């Protein structure tokens, strides 16, 4: 059986990859994917703890996260398409216009 430490390290690496991607990339679609990676890093942690504690609640929780993430992606992609239609590109700096003055 895979020890918990390995699972946690894997989750942390995955989360960092997602975080760095979110902070450094310019394409909005890539940002989206980075956020998904971070969510799934959390899922890995949940499942790892669930297994090591013998408590299935963590796995149930992971399924919930996936569900919510799917809904979120649906909304996010819709916005992204509208963005593309109005601007012809989906770069993150174009979103500054939405800032609160």
């Amino acid at each position: 059986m895979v020890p918990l430490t390995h699972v946690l390290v894997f989750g942390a690496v995955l989360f960092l990859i997602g975080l760095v991607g979110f902070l450094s990339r310019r394409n909005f679609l890539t940002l989206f994917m980075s956020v998904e990676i971070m969510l799934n890093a959390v899922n890995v942690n949940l499942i790892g703890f669930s297994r090591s504690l013998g408590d299935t609640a963590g796995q149930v929780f992971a399924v919930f996260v996936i569900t919510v993430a799917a809904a979120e992606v649906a909304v996010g992609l819709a916005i992204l398409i509208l963005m593309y239609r109005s601007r012809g590109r989906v770069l993150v700096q174009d979103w500054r216009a939405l800032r609160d003055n």
Partner: protein
Amino acid sequence: MLGTGPIPELLPVVPALPFAAALLVALVGPKYLQGRSHALSVAAAAGSFLISAVLFVELLGQNAESRVIHLTLWRWIASGGFETHVGFLFDPLSAVMCLVVTGVGFLIHVYSIGYMKDDPSYFRFFSYLSLFLGSMPVLVLADNFLLLFVGWEGVGLCSYLLIGFWYEKSSASAAGLKAFLVNRIGDAGFLLGLAGLAAVFGTLDFGAIHKAVDTNASVTPWFAGTSMTVRDCFASPLGLGITVGTAITLALFFGATGKSAQVPLYVWLPDAMEGPTPVSALIHAATMVTAGVYLLARAHFLFALTPVTLAVVLGVGTLTAVIAASIAVVQRDIKRVLAYSTVSQLGFMFAAAGTGAFTAAIFHLVTHAFFKALLFLGAGSVMHALDNETDLFRMGGLSKKLRVTSLTFLVGAAALVGLPPFAGFFSKDEILFRVISTTNPSAPWLPQACYAVLLVTSALTAFYTARMVFLAFYGTSRVDSHVAAHVHESPPMMTLPLAALALLAFVGGALGVSGVLGVRLHAPDFVGRFLEPVLGATSQHADSEGAELVSMAAVVGIALVAIALAYFLYVRHLDAPAKIADAFSGAYRALSRKLYVDEVYDWIVVRPVGWLSRLGSGVDRYLVDGIVNATGVVAHGFSWLLGRLQNGDLQLYGLVIGIGIAVILFSVLVR
């Protein structure tokens, strides 16, 4: 102790009637009443006087020892162990005051109809006058110190409003302000005295405090924490050689010096002459300014315990009497002569109170109300005839044209000088004799010194009074020719009150013939006997009859000499006064500039207060406001800085959130 029938319920009506009139006149006066505004006010004054008279008769019908009509209306303040009611008390002292206030008030209301005719603010005048005539009975009928203070402030307000009645004139509004502010200084003392009384007795009720003092009950004053008897409490030292009792009574007396224009707070009264003459007569001669004397008489049982305060009262009264009388000698303005004369006569009343002769003080208060109101109204009648001329040196020879005015004025002047048998003779003589025959353990030499000074003062009184009469009514006319052409006697509306007051000033003294004259003439001392249950017996000095007669003769003799001197100077040799003034130019200038008291006060009080307030306003504007504004500026700056962070850059937000979480995790996990 309640009377029978509806009598106690009549008490609140005495102040309520004028209050209602004041309100009605103020509301409907400008639109509907205008020139008829006096009707309501005069009717209310008459009603108040009649009710007072009914109550007085009811009081006379009761047993001499139990002459009290008392009515408690409602509980006003209840806080911890302290409780105060709104209640009215009609005992002999209140009765005398109430009759004088409403009676003289009514006469002056009638007089005002003629005097204020054609004034553009006719209704406003009568509204204020009624407000005053409502506040004054609250003062004299109150059954506790706090309600008395309400009336006290009410009359102060009316005084302010009426002095500044012709507010377009800057001197009038300044005089009103001065009166109000100087009175506030005295009121601060009064309030301290009330706080002291409340702290010692836990109540401000006259009856309760009187009883506690009489029975020497045990009280729990604030400074001790344990209970002790009233006398022990009053004798407890408070520091600086002052006992608790002395401090409380001195504070009350300080309040009285403000309202009753005594040294050091008398400076407002002469300026108050800027108001209409009926106001000077009613408020600043007959009624309001005597409130201080009434306060002392009302609280006589406290003052009787504190010889030091009594000595101060005697000294201050005497000092005021002589200072004011000497200033009056050189005044050219007829109303100012009368104003200083009022201050001086109030000094006599306080001197009497300072010897414990409260009955004599109240008796002089009553006679003074009659003859000084008469003199003021007479002066008003003269001004009415001469186009508001007040300079004595531009009058003269008026007795031929103003017969009623000059005759009644003469009666008032004789009463003021104290010539027998006019009212002032009996009351002033009683005061002088009380002063010489008193003993004060805390200052044994004081009564004799004060007697000597008061003798000089009566000489001065006779001199300035005679000077005023001779300059105004006798000798050659110095009236401007265009004014002299239409000098006329005042309408009956004004001369009738003059005649009524002259009658009172003539026979009023008979009400209180006491001492050796009372014994020799078999005259009953009505006032003294009537006030006895409240103020204590007027002891008869059977063994000092001779001394009293000598004193009396001395007073009258000195007065006659002074009058003769005034006749010589102001009728025979009218150029002599100027020469004398030149010869003693320093003294003359000092007196005519009112001994520079106003200037001194300006330097030691008004200006420092001005500097202090400018300093305070600077501190407020630049320091306090600066701190407040700086808070705003700093908050604004921070919000600007944080606002820069919110630039819409999604990834910057993410970075900040990430760093934040990292810092929190680091601090939670690593520590």
